[in-house]
Structures are given as C-alpha cells and as structure tokens.
C-alpha cells in the first residue's frame, strides 16, 4: 500500500500501487493537485471524479478494488484510477465458430459488460450488481432486458445469489454449482458461454445472463437440455445447413452414449443381432483378445480419456505429440498385440469424436461420463442393462429444473412450436416466437413473413 502526503495542500493519498494505473493516477490526480494552490483544492475535489465517501468500510472496499483514497481535512474521497492487469479482448478458445463474430469475453467484468452493451443498445437492458464471497468479494452482474424477461426468474436468481454464503468464487461454473437447482446432478443446468454474441442472443430471447468478475464465461438461465446442442454458428449459416449440423449433433449424442455400449452388449449377449457378413470378421478380431468385451472396452475408453486429458493439460505444441503417440501406440499396436479388436477401436474412436461435436464443453464432459455407466450396464446385462441405464437418465432428466422451469422443455412439457428452433434450425422468418421456457411477456420476436 502506498501512502503519499502532500503537506502544503494538506492532502493524503492512499492506494495500492499494483492495482492502480500509474499514468492515470498521475494525470488525473497527482498532476492537478500539485499545480493547484491550497485554496483551490476544495474546488478541485468537487469535480466529478472525486466521490465523497463517508463510510470507512466503503473506503476500504474502494481501495481494495483499485481506487485511490484522498483525504483532505476531515473529508475523504475515492478516485477511480483502477487499472488492474487484464488481457485484451481475444478469440474464444473453447467455442470457436467459422463464420460469425470472433470476439470473446475476458476476465474483466467491465469489459464484458461493455461487449454486451455494444451489442444491445437498449435502455431496457438492466444490470443487477451483486457481490459474492465473504473473502473474495467477487462482483456478480445479472443482466436482463426489461419487458422481455419473466420477472420471477430474475427475482429467483437474485435471491439464490443473495442467499449464497461462501468465502470465495473464482469462476462462473463455481457460482453455478452453488446456485443451480440440483447441484448433485451430472448435467449442467445453466448454459455457459464465452461468446458475447451468444450471450446477447440469450438476453434477447428473454433469459437472464450472469457475469462473474474474474471469469471469462458468462451463464444464462433458464436453460433446457437441448440448448446445449445449439451453437451460434447455426444461425450464421443458411438454415438448411444449420438444421443439418444440429441433427448431426443429436446423432453424435446418440453415438457417444451408445456405440461402445452396443458393441459390448452385442458381443457379450446378443450375438444373433450381428449380420452374417460381419459375424466372422467380428469373431475373428475378438478371437485373440484375452478379456471379455466389457474390460476390453473399459480399458480403451479410459485410454482415450487419458489421451484427452493429457492433450488438454499440455501446451499445444507438445499436445500434438500426444495425438501421434496415442494414435499409433494405442490404435495400431494394441490391435496387433491382440489386446483389443479393431472393431472396438472404431467404436471407441467414433464415440470419442462424436463427444467433441457437442458444442458445450461442460455438457460434452457430462455425456462422456454417462457413457461409462451405460458401458458397465451393458457389460452386466446387455441391451436390458442399456435400456435400464437410459431409463435412469431420462427419469433423472425429467426431475431436473432450471430456475424452476422444466429442463426438458420443449419435449416435456410439449411445446411443438419451439421445436423449430430446437431440433432443427428453421428459417429465421419461421421462428417467430421466443422460446416458451422463458415465459417472455412479449413473446413475438419477428413479424416478418415471407
């Protein structure tokens, strides 16, 4: 902490040297003060950048967040000269698109707010500022568009954040785990995104967007399960392409969840399902494998997860080596050594690739884990086990809510109109209403007809 005293003008300046922008401090505060005569000080301090602060707590908080405190006679003022380290607006790493805006949120909530304000130039865009964390005092901003938003959702979200008592929050995902409807569930119940265009579209559709200072991701709520399968890319392409990619993602979901499990179920219990032309190939590739299909599949699945995790932790340049090592060692050698059958490799690889097609990383991680459950069930009871597992998932999903609204909208409750923008991406002129889950008081979003 720096304490400067200017005797002749009777001013004390207190600030954290590493939190303030030195240039700004000199230009805005120190220079004018040094040039001013002692009798002008009072008028200087009446300028707008000096906030009269009487509460010592506020004063401490101000200094902690990078402001400079000015003490003059018996008054104390705060000047915003904050310039803490922050990176510039860059590209999104986890949600890349090919066409469309490339900017991404960064760790500075102010920048993030600006990015959103820049996109939505509306006086109805409201921000609720909350503070979370006894120790960290992290700022949380809840954004919504008045008139498009269902008020109880905001009240519910604000209430949940207010009730939260914890010492620290470092990331949006941490906050979400505290405030979502079922924190024990494997499924994320609030959508998170790094993309300002995605967040802006959520706002306009009537959802709430939350920004946590210090985190480059924002969350939006309420969310449905199917929202995790759409990407902003879908809207920037022609609608047929958007629809095709979206259907592809649902296919990928099915493949990820079931491919390896089906392999295990079929090779362990339901040999009669294999067509004759495949039967001998499959039996032959299995014939040298020393363990039952479940263990074989589990080993390979774990291997893929190891590869993925290693690739994610390593710097990009070394990460490529991992790919080569994994591809050759595990793909080729394991088959040649007779540890796995080559058809399993295909199944495991295609289910791994499919899992990366799902745009939301959080959701794709959850789904990858579920895959293991189904795999084990398939090993125990074949198709019966798989269907037991799937029923379990559906039952679990149907009990989930997001801000109290059904997680499975628009499938249950059934809202066929919403399907236009959930299972397919209909032409923009056909999607005339905001998603019904958001209960927007003004549901019509586009009046153009073609």
């Amino acid at each position, binding site marked *: 902490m720096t304490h400067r005293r200017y005797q002749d003008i009777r001013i004390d300046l207190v600030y954290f040297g590493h939190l303030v922008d030195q240039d700004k401090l000199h230009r805005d505060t120190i220079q004018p003060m040094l040039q001013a005569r002692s009798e002008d000080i009072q008028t200087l301090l009446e300028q707008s950048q000096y906030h009269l602060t009487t509460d010592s707590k506020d004063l401490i908080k101000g200094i902690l967040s990078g402001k400079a405190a000015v003490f003059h006679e018996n008054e104390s003022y705060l000047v915003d000269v904050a310039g803490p380290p922050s990176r510039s607006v860059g590209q999104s790493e986890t949600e890349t698109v090919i066409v469309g805006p490339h900017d991404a949120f960064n760790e500075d909530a102010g920048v993030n707010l600006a990015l959103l304000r820049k996109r939505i130039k509306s006086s109805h865009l409201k921000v609720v500022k909350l503070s979370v964390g006894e120790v960290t005092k992290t700022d949380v901003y809840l954004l919504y568009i008045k008139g498009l938003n269902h008020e109880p959702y905001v009240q519910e979200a604000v209430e949940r954040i207010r009730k939260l008592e914890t010492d620290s929050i470092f990331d949006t995902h941490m906050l979400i785990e505290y405030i979502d409807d079922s924190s024990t569930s494997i499924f994320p119940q609030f959508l998170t995104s790094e993309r300002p265009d995605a967040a802006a579209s959520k706002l306009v559709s009537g959802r709430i967007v939350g920004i946590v200072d210090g985190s480059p991701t924002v969350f939006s709520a309420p969310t449905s399960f199917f929202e995790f399968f759409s990407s902003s890319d879908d809207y920037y392409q022609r609608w047929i392409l958007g629809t095709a990619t979206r259907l592809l993602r649902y296919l990928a979901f099915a493949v990820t969840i079931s491919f390896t499990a089906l392999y295990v179920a079929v090779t362990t*219990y339901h040999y009669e399902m294999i067509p004759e032309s495949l039967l001998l190939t499959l039996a032959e590739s299995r014939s040298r494998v020393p363990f039952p299909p479940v263990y074989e599949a589990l080993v390979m699945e774990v291997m893929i997860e190891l590869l993925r995790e290693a690739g994610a932790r390593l710097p990009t340049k070394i990460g490529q080596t991992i790919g080569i090592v994994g591809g050759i060692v595990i793909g080729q050698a394991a088959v040649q050594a007779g540890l796995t059958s080559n058809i399993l490799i295909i199944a495991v690889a295609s289910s791994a690739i499919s899992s990366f097609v799902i745009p939301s990383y959080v959701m794709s991680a959850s789904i990858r884990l579920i895959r293991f459950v189904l795999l084990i069930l398939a090993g125990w*009871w074949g198709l019966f086990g798989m269907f037991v597992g799937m029923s379990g998932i559906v039952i679990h999903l149907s009990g989930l809510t997001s801000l109290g609204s059904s997680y499975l909208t628009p499938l249950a409750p059934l809202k066929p109109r919403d399907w236009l923008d959930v299972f397919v991406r209909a032409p923009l002129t056909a999607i005339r209403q905001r998603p019904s889950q958001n209960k927007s008081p003004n549901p019509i979003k586009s009046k153009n007809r073609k």
Partner: protein
Amino acid sequence: MRNVPRILILTLVATLLAGCGDKRILEDLGFTQTTSYDLLPTGELDITLSIPLADPEAKSKRMILRTTSVSSKESRIKMAMQTHLNLVSGQLRNSIFGLTLSKEGIWNHIDTLIRDPSISPQVKVTVINGNAGELLRKDYKQQPRTGKYIDKMLQKEAEGQNVPKVTLYHFARDYYDDGIDPIAPVLKDIGDHIAIDGIGLFRDDRYMTKIEPKDALIFAFLRGRFKQGELSVDLSRETHSDKQMAMLSGLMSTRKVKVNLGRNGQTTVTFAIRITGSILEYIGPYNLSDHSDKKKLENQIASHIIDKSEVMVRMMQKHKVDSLGIGTHVRNRMSYKAWKSMNWNDDVYPKVRVLFDVSVKIKDYGKFR
C-alpha cells in the same frame, strides 16, 4: 428427498456386483449356420451341423458335427459334447431336409425351430433331392463354405423368381392357413456344384411333388406379384414353324384371382395375370419394331404361358396340393359354415375349373431394331 436417488444407486450397484451368468461372448460360440435333417432307415434322425470358424489358427474354415438320435434337441446335447465351442443357434440361416424325411413330414422339426426364441423366423427351409447331410458335409472346391454357398445361392435365385423365398415364417404361415399349402425350394448335388432342382410342393408338412426348374417362372406368375425375373420361351411348337424363341427380361407381373361359385357346385377360378417385360433375345420371323408383329408375339407368349400353366395346375390338382392358394380366394367368397363343412384339398380342389387370362406386354426390345 435428496437421499433417495443415492440410496437407490447404491443398492443398484450392490445388486449388480452380485454378478450374473448368461454371457455369450462372441469368440466362445459356435454359430450353427446350417442344420441338415435326414431320416435313417432305422427311423432315427441323422443330423449335421455346419459351423463357420473364425479362429485364424484353425486349419479348416468350418466345423462339421454329425450325430444320430431320436429327436433333434437330443442331438444338440450330443453334439455339444463334441466341440470346445458353445453351440448356439441364433445365427442359423438355413435348415435343409433330406427327401425321405420331407416325404414323412417335417413339421416336428419346424415346430422345434419356431419354438426356440433364439432362432430367427427368417431361417430358410429347403428340401434336398437326395441326402441333405451328405450335401452339407461335402466341400465344394470352387465355392465358398457349403452352408454359405447354399444360402447365397437361394437368396440370389429367389430374387430372380427361380425359387420362392421360403423361411420358417412362410412355411408355418402356409402350413396353418387352410387355403394354401406350403412350398420349399429343392436343391441337389451335381458333383462339383449344387443346383436348383425345382420347387417342392407340400401337402400339410409332407413333400408330395415338385415343379421343374424350367417351369419356375410360370409358378411365380401364378403364385403372386413380383418385380424381377427372366423367362425364356420356346415358341416353336405354338407356331408350328421354324425355330422361334424369345427371352424376356426385367419381368414384372401382377396376379388377380377371380372366383365364380357355380350353382351346380362347379367352382371356376380365373387367374388374371398381367406381365410386362423387355425382350433381350429374339429368334424368329417377326419384326419387333412393327406394331402388329409385336402384338402377335405378345399373344403367342401369353398363350404359351397359358398352356404351361394349365399343365402345371392340372398336375397340382392331381396331387391335391393347393400351392397357389386358390383355397384362400375360394374361401373369401364363401360363408364360414360352407367352407368349414367341405373338404377343400381332397374333394373340391381337384375338381375346380381353372381358367387363365394372361396378357403380356413388351415394354422394349433392346437398343437395336
């Protein structure tokens, strides 16, 4: 409330860990691909299984198991003792029956096959003119594994209407239906190969007679609609002229059956058959690009088909086998009581008058006038 799912999951895992048997892991299985049944003079059954082998270390491409026993299930137990693999029948594709057994009746065996839930209703039923086991055990050098060879051949031939597609489902359906009798393709060994030997006609479950392979297409016309087939007709006799023959390809045929219950008890059945196809080969006096010539040829082919059909139906009536399902159509024109009170196969069917109304249409005749 929140603890319930956790407790459930724990119980689930605990019960699952108790484990279970019933695993049928692919490489430990011996998939029976074809089963053959023969009747020995002693009255016992001679059963042969053909099992394709996937093991790259094995010298032979397939395993043959053979046993004699009183029942087919007993034989399975006996055969299971001869091999290191678990015998399973979920991949069974074909069941072949020797001629002697077919004449005695095969329903007992079909019934066993249908009863077993692991056996597909799409398993083919085939009669072998000769000894089925011998044919199955023989290796045909120029052909794939014998079981697969028979299966592929039947499949291909069924697409060309040279034999009907007859599976357990078809056989059982026609067996139970009182207006139609089942059929099955007949094969025979001709030394280095296996050949189609016609279509076996059954009465209930007993093989009665067969239709020669050259007449298979005629049978197909009479049996129902189809969309693919080739027919070669020798018209020399009809025209009393020099050699004249035509080869029709890409045949499409539809069949309609009209029934007229005469007052005097004389039932008349008319088969209305519409055939279209293209001429691939023609030797004879007509100029196909001439419209009236083409008409003449069409009529000649039609009358040729009618002649053949008459002979065929007469033969079937003689053997009292209603393989064309004339009974179903007659039945649909009668009252339930009248139908039940008569003995269709024995009394009425042989006396039914069958007429034919065949029209042939030549769509095209190749790219050469």
